């Protein structure tokens, strides 16, 4: 797939259809992949990558690196297309200046899972079908891909592309992978257990804001967390209140717009399961206001800027009707 993508990107650059390409590039290590803008065939030949480490969602990167006066090619994995569709719905990117190519994804590898196994001194990693081969200073190791796949990919919601101008590979389908199982487990706990669980998770947050910076739904010109007047601006949380505050507010801001792309959990250096907050909102919305998947099609109306006159009353929470 990588070679076909490179070829197509170079074709489109050569024909002048696009002048920039947004894709992934490898850095020092095989697993150290970052989004990048490519402007020439040479750059593509040298740096362009598409493999099982290309986790970053290019939609947010496109939002930050867009240009209005020229056309940019963007490669999108299925989950990235949901984010892109949502950004178009919210008028955060200029659709006319984009050429979107949908590409297949077979699940991305979470390097932390390999490291957690005590694997150190990694020289190279190759992922081929169900096998992941790691060459290290101390010898080679092989893993079963499913064991080292990112959490979000194990619970992948869709292999279907919600938007593209051109599709490479086969179109996939929306899937049912039990992504709400963990949420249900938490719901079944007592409030005290839940409180304990979240204290354990959220107290590790160092307020690096990586989750916000990577989130395709967080594209506000001036974020509440950057405004010193709100009293909740960027700083390490001083107590449990502030830890809760940041996460409740951020999850609330993206509720109804979060596509469950999983970027927030992926980038969190503290491995906080942020998806469990977003999925709670998604599930509540599904149950109370009808099934809703953000980023499914352009122009959808988010359930939080919508209503019906016979919506459930907030009391439903207190009375445990849900």
């Amino acid at each position, binding site marked *: 797939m990588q070679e076909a993508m490179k070829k197509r990107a170079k074709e489109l650059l050569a024909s002048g259809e696009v002048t920039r390409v947004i894709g992934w590039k490898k850095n020092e290590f095989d697993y150290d992949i970052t989004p990048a803008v490519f402007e020439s065939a040479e750059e593509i030949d040298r740096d362009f990558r598409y493999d099982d480490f290309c986790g970053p969602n290019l939609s947010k990167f496109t939002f930050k690196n867009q240009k209005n006066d020229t056309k940019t090619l963007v490669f999108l994995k299925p989950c990235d297309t949901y984010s892109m569709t949502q950004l178009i719905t919210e008028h955060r990117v200029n659709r006319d200046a984009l050429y979107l190519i949908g590409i297949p994804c077979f699940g991305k590898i979470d390097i932390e899972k390999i490291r957690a196994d005590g694997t150190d001194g990694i020289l190279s990693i190759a992922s081929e079908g169900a096998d992941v081969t790691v060459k290290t200073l101390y010898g080679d190791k092989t893993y079963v891909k499913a064991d080292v796949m990112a959490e979000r990919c194990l619970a992948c919601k869709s292999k279907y592309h919600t938007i593209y101008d051109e599709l490479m590979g086969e179109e996939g389908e929306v899937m049912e992978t039990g992504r709400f199982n963990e949420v249900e487990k*938490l*719901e079944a706990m007592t*409030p*005290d*257990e*839940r*409180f*304990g*669980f*979240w204290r354990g998770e959220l107290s590790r947050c160092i307020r690096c804001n990586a989750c916000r910076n990577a989130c395709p739904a967080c594209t506000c010109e001036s974020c*509440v967390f950057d405004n010193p007047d*709100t*009293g*909740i601006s960027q700083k390490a949380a*001083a*107590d*449990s*209140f*502030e830890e*809760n*505050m940041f996460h*409740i*507010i951020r*999850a*609330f801001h993206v*509720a109804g717009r979060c596509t469950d792309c999983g970027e927030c959990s992926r980038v969190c250096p503290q491995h906080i399961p942020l998806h469990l*907050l977003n999925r*709670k*909102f998604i599930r*509540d*919305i599904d149950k*109370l*206001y009808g099934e809703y998947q953000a980023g499914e099609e352009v122009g959808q109306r988010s*359930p*939080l*800027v*919508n*209503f*019906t*006159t016979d*919506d*459930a*009353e*907030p*009391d*439903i*929470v*207190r009375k445990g009707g*849900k």
Partner: protein
Amino acid sequence: MPISEFKPKIVAFCCNWCSYAGADLAGTNRLNYPADVKIIRVPCSCRVNPIFILRAFQRGADGVILCGCHPGDCHYTTGNYYTRRRMTLLFSMLDYLGIEKERTRVEWVSAAEGAKFAAVMQDFVKTVTELGENKRLEDRRCKKP
């Protein structure tokens, strides 16, 4: 602190057009409601951002109640329909984080419902008194000794 001495601090966000007038009516009719309820007037219930609710807890509230016009009667036509969705989801999230769900409430109180306003406040204060002090969403730096 023994339960009998504990007086909860309650913050009541009341929309200007119905609930605030309802509170006023409770007052002019000399209906009793606990003095621990501090009313904050807002133009419409949907003016209340989730941050306001959390901030009230941070600054020492033990319970936060939000009052607005009855659905369909909002002065701005549809404001409270949005309030309804937002608060339902917010309260559910608080519960999910293990924060007592009895500490937050939404009630619809019209300008003519002075008696309802008093009754709602009495009931809410009673519930929060039974729960005791807010410990799960507090900021100790904001609490007076």
